[in-house]
C-alpha cells in the first residue's frame, strides 16, 4: 500500500453507490441508483440534462443526504459523514459551475486543497515557526513541482483566478483537487464550455491522472466523444434511474441509451451524432 510521509493511504479507491434514492419535495431526483467506480479506472456517468447526475455527485460528496441507500468508499460506509470528513478520506471533486475562490491567486487556490492533510495549529500559525513554516514550504514545493508543472499552469500561478479563461479555471480546479491527495476524483463536466484544443488537453490530463497518479476517476460528462475515448466503464442515468451500464462500446450500442439521448431507439443514429460531434 502506498503511503505518504504522514501515513495517509494513497492507493486508488473504489466507490460504490448502492440503491441511492433522493427526493426534493415530491420530485424523485434519484431512484435506487446503484453503480461502482472501480479502483484505478475512469468511470463516466452520462445522461441527458436533469437526469440527476449532479445530484448523484452531491450525495457522494455529502451535500445531499439520500433518503435511502448508501455510499461506500472502499467498502466503508460514508453515507453519514460530513463533506470535510469525506475529503480527508480521499474524495476530491470539481464543480459543474466552477467553485474556485475568485479573489485568491491560482497558487493559493491550489494550496487550499491540502488543508485536510496539514496539521499546523493556531499557536504554530501565529508564530510561523517549526511545523507551520515546514509544512508551508513542503506544500509549496509539491504544488510547484508536481501539480503546477504537470498541468502546465506555471505562467498563471500568481494571477487571481477571476482573470483566467474558463478553460484555465477548470484546469485550476483540477489542480486544487489533486492537491487534496485524492484517492478518487469526482469531476462534474470537466470539459463543458471548452474548445476542441482545451478539451483535448483536459482529456490528456485526466488520463495521466489515472495512469501516473494512480487515482480513480468518476466523471459526469456531456461530451460523448470524450466519454467514449477515455472511460473504462460507463453508467447511464435517465430520469433518476440507471438505464444502462458497461463498456463504452456496449453502452453506445444500447437502444435504451439512444432512446434517452435522441428520443428514438436507434443506436446507429447516436453513433452518427457522435461521429459528427467528434468531427466538429
Amino acid at each position: 500500500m502506498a503511503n505518504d510521509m504522514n501515513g495517509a493511504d494513497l492507493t486508488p479507491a473504489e466507490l460504490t453507490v448502492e440503491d441511492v434514492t433522493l427526493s426534493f419535495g415530491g420530485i424523485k431526483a434519484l431512484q435506487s441508483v446503484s453503480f461502482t467506480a472501480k479502483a484505478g479506472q475512469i468511470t463516466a456517468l452520462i445522461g441527458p440534462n436533469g437526469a440527476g447526475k449532479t445530484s448523484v455527485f452531491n450525495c457522494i460528496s455529502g451535500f445531499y443526504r439520500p433518503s435511502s441507500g448508501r455510499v461506500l468508499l472502499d467498502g466503508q460506509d460514508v453515507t453519514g459523514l460530513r463533506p470535510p470528513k469525506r475529503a480527508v478520506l480521499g474524495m476530491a471533486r470539481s464543480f459543474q459551475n466552477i467553485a474556485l475562490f475568485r479573489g485568491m491567486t491560482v497558487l493559493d487556490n491550489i494550496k487550499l486543497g491540502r488543508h485536510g492533510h496539514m496539521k499546523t495549529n493556531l499557536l504554530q500559525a501565529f508564530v510561523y515557526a517549526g511545523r507551520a513554516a515546514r509544512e508551508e514550504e513542503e506544500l509549496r514545493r509539491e504544488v510547484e513541482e508536481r501539480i503546477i508543472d504537470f498541468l502546465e499552469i506555471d505562467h498563471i500561478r500568481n494571477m487571481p483566478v477571476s482573470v483566467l479563461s474558463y478553460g484555465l479555471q477548470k484546469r485550476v480546479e483540477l489542480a486544487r483537487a489533486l492537491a487534496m491527495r485524492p484517492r478518487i476524483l469526482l469531476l462534474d463536466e470537466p470539459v463543458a464550455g471548452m474548445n476542441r484544443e482545451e478539451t483535448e488537453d483536459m482529456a490528456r490530463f485526466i488520463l495521466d491522472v489515472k495512469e501516473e497518479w494512480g487515482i480513480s476517476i468518476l466523471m459526469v460528462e456531456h461530451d460523448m466523444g470524450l466519454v467514449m475515448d477515455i472511460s473504462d466503464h460507463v453508467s447511464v442515468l435517465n430520469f433518476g434511474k440507471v438505464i444502462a451500464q458497461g463498456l463504452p462500446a456496449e453502452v453506445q450500442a444500447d437502444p435504451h441509451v439512444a432512446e434517452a439521448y435522441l428520443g428514438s431507439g436507434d443506436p446507429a443514429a447516436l453513433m452518427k451524432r457522435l461521429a459528427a460531434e467528434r468531427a466538429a
Partner: protein
Amino acid sequence: MIIGTAKETYRADESLLTTQPQRVWLAIFAASLVALPFVVNDYWLYLTCLVAINVAAATGLNILTGFTGLVSLGHAAFMAVGAYTVAWLETNLGTPFWVNLIAAGLVAAALGILVGLPSLKVKGLYLAIATIAASFILHFCFVHFDGITGGATGINIPPLTIFGAELTTYFSLYWVIMPVTVLMVLGAANLFRTRIGRAFIAIRDRDISAEVLGIPLLRYKLMSFSIASFYAGMAGGLWAYFFRVVTPESFPLLTSIFLLAAIIVGGMGTILGGILGAVFMTLAPELLRYGVEWISPLVPNAGALLSPVRTVVFGALIVGFLIFEPQGLAEIIQRIRRFFRLWPFRT
C-alpha cells in the same frame, strides 16, 4: 546543488517580506516606532497609544469580518470583557500584567465562541444583529453583576506595574502597548500564511466549496470568532491599563461601529487595511481639529462655525473613501508601491 537552491527559493517565496525594498521600509518603520516617543510631545504620545490599541482591536475584527466574512457589531463588547478581566485581576489577585492581558484575551475568546455559535446558521445582517444582541446582554451583565464589575460606577485600575515600577506616564505605557500591538499584528500576518488563514478566506469566499476541501465550517467559524475576540480582549486589557477605569459605558455600540468603519475604510481582508483604517479613524478627527485651529484666525466667530464643519468633513471623508476607494486605504498604498516599483533601490 540544484535541490538546495530550489529549497531556498520556496522558503524565500513563502516569507512575509519578499522583496528587499519591503524589508528596508519595514526596518525604517520599526526604527521610527522606537524613536517616536523621544520626539513627540505627551499629547501625541497619548494619541499614538490610542492608535495602537485601536489597531490591535481593528486587526481582530478584520480577521473575523474582513477575512472570514462574518460581520460583527459586538467587537467593542469583547474589548469591555478584556478590560473588566484586567480590572478584576488587578484589584483582586494582583497577578502580573502579562498574565492579566492574556487572561483578558482568553476570557473574551471563550465568550466569542459562545457568541459565534449562531454563525453557522445566520449570515450577513442577521449575524450583525445577533452580535449586537450579544453586546446588549454583556452590557446588562456589566451593570448588574456589581459584585464582579462594580456596577454602574465600574472599577478603578491600579497602574500597570512591571518589575516593581509603576507605569503612569504615556511614555512608559507606550513601551508596553506598542510592542504588544506589534506582536499581535505580526501574529495575524503569520496566520494568513498558513492553512488556517487560507481556510478563513475560503469560508468568506464560498463556504460550500470550503467544505469539500476538508474545512469543517463550524469549527473554523468559531475559531475565527475566538481569535477576533481574543484580539478585542487584549486590546480592551491595554485600554484598561491606559485609562485606568472601566465602566459599562466605556465601550458603547459606537465603538463597534467605529472599528467596523476602520476596517472598511482601511481595507477589509488585508492586514495593512486594519492598521491604516484604525490610524485614519483615530487621527483624522484630531488632524481636522488642527486644521480648524489653523484657519480660525482667518474666519470671524470661528469656534462656533467650524466645529460642526469638522464633524461633517470627517463624515464626508469616510463616505468619499467608500465611493472612490472601495478597496480601502490599503489599496492606495499598493498602487503607490506598484508606481514606484522598486524605487529607490532600482529605477
